[in-house]
C-alpha cells in the first residue's frame, strides 16, 4: 500500500512514503524554516492548508509552489530559499 517516492531536497536525495506532501517531507528532513521573508526572517508553515503562502518553495524550477498542497512525486527537485 505505502509505496516509496524518491526526490531531491536542495540537491539531497530523500525517500518518503507516497501521499506525503512536499512540506511534510521538508519538515521531516529538518528544514523547519521553509522560506526567507522579505526582511530575511526564516519562516515556517502557518495554516497548513494552502492559504498563507509561508511554505512556498521552488519545484522543478517553478517558483512559489505551496509545498503543503503538493504531493511528493518521483524525481521531483525541491529547492528552498
Amino acid at each position, binding site marked *: 500500500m505505502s509505496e516509496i517516492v524518491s526526490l531531491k531536497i536542495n540537491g539531497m536525495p530523500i525517500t518518503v512514503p507516497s501521499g*506525503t506532501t512536499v512540506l511534510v517531507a521538508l519538515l521531516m528532513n529538518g528544514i523547519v524554516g521553509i522560506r526567507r521573508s*522579505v526582511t530575511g526572517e526564516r519562516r515556517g508553515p502557518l495554516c497548513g492548508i494552502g492559504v498563507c503562502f509561508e511554505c512556498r518553495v521552488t519545484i522543478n524550477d517553478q517558483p512559489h509552489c505551496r509545498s503543503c498542497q503538493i504531493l511528493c512525486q518521483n524525481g521531483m527537485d525541491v529547492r528552498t530559499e
Partner: protein
Amino acid sequence: MIRVRSFDTDVLVVGGGPAGLAAAYSAAQGGRRVLLVDENPTLGGQIWRGEWMAPRSLEAASWFDRVRRARVSLLTGVRIVAEVAEKTLLGESQDATYEFRYKTMILATGARERFLPFPGWTLPNVMGAGGLQALVKMGLPIRGKRVVVAGTGPLLLAVAAYLHAQGAKVLTIAEQASRSQVLSLARTLLRFPSKAWQAVLLRGQLWRIPYDLECWPISAYGEGSVQGVLLRQGSRTREIPCDYVACGFHLVPNVELALLLGCELRDGYVRVNEFQETSRADVFCAGEPVGLGGVDLALVEGQIAGYAATGRLDAARALFGRRAHWRRFASRLNRAFALRPELKSLPDARTIICRCEDVPFERLRGYSSWKEAKLQTRCGMGPCQGRICGPAVEFLFGWTVESHRPPIFPARVESLMWSPSLEQGGHP
C-alpha cells in the same frame, strides 16, 4: 504553450469538504452532470483531510461512498482563480490551466483559521491549531513532541485530542473564552445530545490535559524555531517550554470566490435565501461561508443546496428543520468563543502583522481604513492577498476588509492571458 482543459457541466461544485460532497451527491440524484472541483490533493475538506482513502469516521466513510457511487466527476488539486466569461471560471493546477463552463454553481469553499499576531508568532513551529493537525494528518511525525494548543474555539479540543492520540505530549490547552461563556455552552449541550456525547468523549480523551480558560499566549520565543511560549491567565504569566505552539482563534469563512462573483455578503458571510441561493442567480452557497456551523450544519446545507440547485425544492424543504436545529447550536457556539478585547493589545510595536510583506504593528497605527493602510504600507498586498492579516486587522483596528479583485489567488501569466474567445478561433 498553454494547456487548457475545458469542462462543461450542469452543476459545478467548488470545494470538496462536507458541504461540497453533500451538495454534489444531492445534485447528482436528479440526473444532472455534476463536477466537483477542490484545490487540495484529496477530497474531504479540512475536517476529513487525508481520509479519502482511509476514513476515520463512519460519517466520512458514508459520504465518500455516496459520492463515489453517484454520477459525480471529481477533480482535485485545482483552484479557481478568476471568472473569464458569463458562467465560465478559470482554474489552475500545478501544471495546467482549466476552464469550467457551468449552468449552476454551488460554492462550498469552507473556512480557514483566524490568526491573531503576538510577539514571536512568526517563528517556525508556531502555527495554526488546525494547521498543525493538517500537517500531522499528511504525515508529520508528532510522537513525543511537546505541544501547547492555544487560541479559541471548539477546534482546539479536537486538535488536542487528535495530537494526543498520535502520541504528542499536549502540555496544555489555553482557551481565551470566559469561564461563564464556556459553562453556559456546556449547559446548552444538553439540548443537542449528539454534541453532548462528543463532548463527553473528548473530555475522556483529554482527561489529563489541562483546559485553561481565560488564558492566552502573549509571546513565543526561540532561536531558529520556537522553544517556548508565555501564557497569561488573570494576573499570572507562565512560561512553558515546547516544540510546537498550535494557535488559532476560531475560524473565518472563505468568501473570496463569492465576492469575485458579486454575491452579496451580510456581516462578513455570504447572504443566502432559504434554498441556499445567493444574491446572484444560479449561484448557491453552503457550509462555513454562509455562517460558521461545523460539519453537521455543512452537510445539511450542502444537501439543501444540491437539491435546490437541481429544482428539487420539496427534497430541499424537508431538510429545513434539521438546518434550523444546527443553526441554533452554531449560534450558541460562536457566541461562547467571541474574542475578548484584551487580545487587541497582544502585538507590540515590532510584531509583524502582514507576514507576506513584513509590515509591523507600529506602521499600521494611524490609518483609518484597510485601503489606506494597504496603499501606504503594502499590508495585505502579498501572495496571500490579505487572507491572514485581513481578519487580524479587522479585529485589531476595526477596519472592514471586504474587497477582492481577480485573480483571487496568484496565477500564472499564461493562464490569465488565455481567454475563451481565443480558444474559439477568434483573432487575438
